């Protein structure tokens, strides 16, 4: 009787362990599926022309998405101009002075903001910028994406500054360096790689955002002419081409997806490799 119960318990144990392993495998299937299909369908569409030329009508052969690549880079630049200063400085505040109620509140709101759907940020930028200027523009898209960068950068900056040992601060202040100079010159510089990791991850996150760009950057078939004009972006092109009925456009959607996924994965894996040497868990 006792022996049998032990056997049953062991079988249940093994069963649960294999179910848990099965869950991991099930989760990795879509990841593998996305990477396999994006590569196998996207790679054939990759050639020099796709990087350098403008979109063509669906019935013409050739054409490219050069303007979308250019647009995505411009949007990342604009977003960084919004997200970097606010994110890094708020992060410094939270790490160095934020041990109070106000600090906890900011921390909490930053965390909750990172869970707000991206389309809401787009709607906000639409209402505040697009309706006010009466034009879709690269700037409004950059603002929407920049807002999305803030919570990520704030929290990673805070975390990496907190990792800097106090002895470094004390050594600097013992030499007579003022606190703010200590923070700017010594602490931030010691936390540099962690802060850069956060920035790169936030760029990887916004590079693929589509929803906030639909009603801000809007998309365009031309090269970017000005920051107050609509601008194209890789995710927008993937969306428009994917839902179009034309095979030639759908093929280019896979090509664009291949370029975008490569960018995002390289950023993520790169950050991982850099961080590995520093903070091995």
């Amino acid at each position, binding site marked *: 009787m006792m022996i049998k119960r032990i056997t049953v318990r062991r079988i249940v144990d093994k069963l649960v362990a294999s179910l848990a392993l099965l*869950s991991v495998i099930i989760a990795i299937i879509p990841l593998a599926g*996305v990477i396999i299909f994006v590569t196998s369908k996207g790679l054939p569409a990759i050639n020099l022309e796709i990087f350098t030329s403008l979109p063509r009508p669906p019935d013409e052969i050739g054409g490219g998405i050069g303007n979308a690549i250019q647009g995505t880079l411009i949007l990342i630049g604009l977003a960084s101009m919004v997200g970097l200063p606010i994110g890094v400085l708020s992060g410094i505040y939270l790490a160095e002075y934020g041990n109070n109620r106000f600090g906890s509140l*900011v921390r909490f709101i930053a965390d909750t903001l990172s*869970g707000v759907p991206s389309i809401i940020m787009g709607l906000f930028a639409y209402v505040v910028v697009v309706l006010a200027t009466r034009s879709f523009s690269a700037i409004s898209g950059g603002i929407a994406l920049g*807002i999305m960068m803030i919570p990520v950068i704030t929290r990673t900056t805070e975390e990496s500054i907190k990792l800097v040992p106090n002895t470094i601060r004390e050594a600097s202040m013992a030499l007579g360096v003022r606190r703010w100079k200590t923070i700017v010159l010594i602490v931030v510089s010691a936390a540099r790689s962690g802060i850069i990791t956060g920035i790169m991850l936030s760029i990887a996150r916004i590079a*693929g955002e*589509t929803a906030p760009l639909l009603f801000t950057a809007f998309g365009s078939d031309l090269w970017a002419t000005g920051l107050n004009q609509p601008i194209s972006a890789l995710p927008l092109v993937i*969306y428009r081409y*994917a839902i179009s009925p034309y095979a030639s456009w759908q093929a280019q959607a896979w090509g664009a997806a291949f370029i975008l*996924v490569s960018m995002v994965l390289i950023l993520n894996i790169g950050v991982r490799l850099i961080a590995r040497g520093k903070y091995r868990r």
Partner: protein
Amino acid sequence: MSMFPHTFLFGKIKPKRARKSLIGDSVFKNLTAIFALSVLVLALAIFYELYSRSQLSINEFGLDFLTGVEWDPVDQIFGALPFIYGTVTSSIIALIIAVPISLGIATYLSELAPKRLRSPLSFMVELLAAVPSVVYGLWGLFVMVPWIRDVLQPFLESTLGFLPFFQGPKFGIGMLSGGVILAIMIIPTISAVSREVMLAVPDTQREAAFALGATRWETIKTAVLRYAATGIFGAIMLGLGRALGETMAVIMVIGNRPQISLSFFEPAYTMSGVIASEYIEATQDLYLSSLIEIGLLLFIVTLMMNIIARLLVWRTMRKFRGAKE
């Protein structure tokens, strides 16, 4: 400073310099505080802007907006129930699929996996979250939807077809596809946060269970899962928050038809979906205002979800920290 008399002496020799540096300190502190404050202002500004822009629709329809089933831009009648139904139902389908799988992943990665595999496997699951949602949409549309149409839907109809959920035309595109793609997208969130909560359970808990002769599963069940339940619930809420607001992947596979149908095979429409695809046609003020009100609802709901979820996770983690000390 009065503890060190010499600072008075030297302070008097170079008073200007000392004051300047002190000013530098307070200027820097206040500067960073202003930027920190801007995060709060931003959250309030988002709420205020969405709220004031949806006034027109709030005044026109009141609470009927939430229960109205008609969405008719021509007659200027806007009721958001079909979208609320689409968002909630597709998110529930996603949770039903994603929760058991995520808990399995979290259990495996925190309790069962060989030490060497834990870190690379966790990273692969986290990579699932890094793939842009429009790419999931593209893959969903051309790879997953045909599979659902040809394999999953016939299978569900033949086994569970007596339920109203699994009857109807098999297009592939529809509520079921929306739920499945959402499940794929929220698995990383739920499993990563659950894993963190489970890792925070003190080892003494596990040791006590093992010492009483429990198997690994019994240990996990009684000492880890029960102990971490609140935090895991928080992780599920975070996943739900993400599912409710997800836009692009769902828009590409759910069919975008504003209807309330019990069948999961039928097309549906989500709140974020209607904002994303109809903003361009919304030239009349009332139409635009109605779309923004849907955005406001989405903002409030996801904010609540996140606040509750963070509080739950935070409370669990704090409990463990107390137990460890």
